[in-house]
């Protein structure tokens, strides 16, 4: 190794110092808002501004579950986002495999179409989507009421398209599907065909091939696709705002938003505790997704 001239090493030390300084400032900028949520959620007399708690307490967290419907919101969020994530993983696993392996003429147009679908902003789609789901919902309600009469109402809570679990799961899944399909297609592109061809030679059927060969091989790709779908759907506010209205179906973002709107009785400790509960699964998922971040984005760069 060549010796470094003293002037050059001083120069290097100075740029390292500059790097430390910039990164420290940007990190403080990134981290400060999180300190407030954490500290205020543990403060018995929380305020809207950042401060060291006057008295440490867990009562804010207790109140989220005892005086508010925190448990219900958490359950709804987990059910709805979990359902959408599972659906995305199944559809993208199968679809991504097909997109990677097919030699048909529709392959390239379809890949372009999926990229284009990905850029359509959900905010511009919700208006027509609301009309579509409203129509489907009315048809379903009429049908169910003719069959079950008044008992149709609780069924609609699960299977309804507007203000029902099924509708929001399908909508959330549809919005996350294009990226997931792309991740899985890229993943299968990098997977050698030898295993499948061996299985094919052994006369395995499509289902056997999927179960014994593809699912085990595709697990890393499916994990990445699932994590990204989960994070995006978990953090989304627009879709539950528009497609859920009854209190029994409220999810965490709606609960947090509406609790904040109760202007005259703002309880910052409670809000911060609720925000922290809502934040935690997202941060955990992000921690797991970290090692896929570069791959997913870099894969985007290379195509």
């Amino acid at each position, binding site marked *: 190794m060549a010796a470094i001239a003293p002037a050059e090493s001083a120069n290097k030390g100075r*740029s*390292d110092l500059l*790097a*430390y300084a910039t*990164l420290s400032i*940007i990190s403080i900028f*990134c981290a*400060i*808002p*999180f300190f*407030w*949520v954490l500290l205020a959620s543990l403060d018995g007399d929380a305020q809207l*501004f*950042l401060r060291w708690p006057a008295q440490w307490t867990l009562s804010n967290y207790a109140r989220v579950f005892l005086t508010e419907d925190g448990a219900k919101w958490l359950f709804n969020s987990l059910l709805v986002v979990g359902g959408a994530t599972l659906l995305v993983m199944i559809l993208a696993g*199968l*679809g991504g*495999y*097909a997109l990677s392996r*097919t*030699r*048909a003429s529709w*392959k390239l147009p379809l890949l372009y179409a999926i*990229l284009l*679908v990905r*850029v*359509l*902003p*959900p*905010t*511009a*789609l*919700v*208006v*027509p989507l*609301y009309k579509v789901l409203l129509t489907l919902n009315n048809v379903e309600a009429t049908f169910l009421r003719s069959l079950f009469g008044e008992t149709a109402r609780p069924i609609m809570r699960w299977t309804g398209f507007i203000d029902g679990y099924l509708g929001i799961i*399908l909508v959330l*899944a*549809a*919005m996350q*599907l*294009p990226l997931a399909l792309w991740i899985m297609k890229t993943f299968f*592109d990098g997977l050698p065909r030898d295993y499948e061809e061996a299985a094919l030679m052994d006369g395995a059927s*499509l289902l056997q091939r999927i179960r014994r060969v593809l699912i085990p091989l595709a697990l890393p790709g499916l994990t990445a696709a699932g994590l990204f779908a989960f994070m995006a759907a978990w*953090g*989304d*506010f*627009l879709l539950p705002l528009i497609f859920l209205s009854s209190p029994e179906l409220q999810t965490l973002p709606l609960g*947090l*938003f509406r609790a*904040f709107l109760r202007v005259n009785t703002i309880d910052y400790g409670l809000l911060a505790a609720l*925000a922290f509960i809502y*934040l935690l699964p997202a941060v955990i998922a*992000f921690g797991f997704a*970290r090692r896929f*971040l570069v791959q997913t*984005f*870099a894969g*985007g*760069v290379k*195509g």
Partner: protein
Amino acid sequence: MGRNLHEQRVERQLLIVLLPSLALLSAFVIYPALYSVYLSFTNEALVGPGALAPRLVGLRNYARLFNDTKFWNSLLVTFVFVLGSAVIGQFVLGLVCAMALRRPIRLRRIFSSIILLPNAAPEVVAGFMWISMLSGGEHATLSRIVAAFGVEPADWLNTFPLAMIIVVNTWRGIATAMILLTAGLSTIPSEIYEAARMDGATPQQMFRRITLPLMMPTILLYMLISAVSTIAVFGLVYALTRGGPGGATELVSIYIYNQSFAAYQLGYGAAVAVIVLIIALLLGVGYVKAMKVEI
């Protein structure tokens, strides 16, 4: 011949496993996108006569939109928002972070974890955290920080609403820019820098003559991705300001929401949505080209 038949069978099976995805995307994305064009020519509404018997009204929604100062305002706000946060804020800070983190310094993992954190915060939580940073006058966290530099405290979110949502969205998106630009930087071979250093190039010269030109494809792709995703931002700003005060932060996404679900004018909301879809598709065509799809 047998080989060919077999291949046909495989292709059919592949199409079958792809069909559920295509069905979901057609029903919930593509059909609604096309349907919004139809809706934009009707007086469809959630209440009143438009709800009972919607009819075609020709170009009336578009004529109204053309003369609607609130619509033009929302487009302008969106443009400044995208320019300030995605094109300038996130890009500059993301590039600075990516270049600083390339150096073999200690604590790299900790720095990058902290910078990634805002990206994980759900929209409403991010908005709520920033309300605490910006509201509360002299007690607000931002007021106390800038007080150290002799700046007067202010009601930030009401006095500088657009600048503040740009700051917040920059905060949220540094990570995306950093990741993409890091990937781009890593494709530049270090020999080029070595050679330039031998020739006595200064760091500024190397940045302008080597880093920037070689990064151009990555930068272009980043700009397209972040522009498209920034146009779609809704929850973060809605939780912070709900478009106020006085429309100062009414992004076009918030305008669509207000027209459709607060004023119940679905037909008119759809006309605004069509304009946004056209803008997104134009950017999307550039994005598809920049991706250089491999089959």
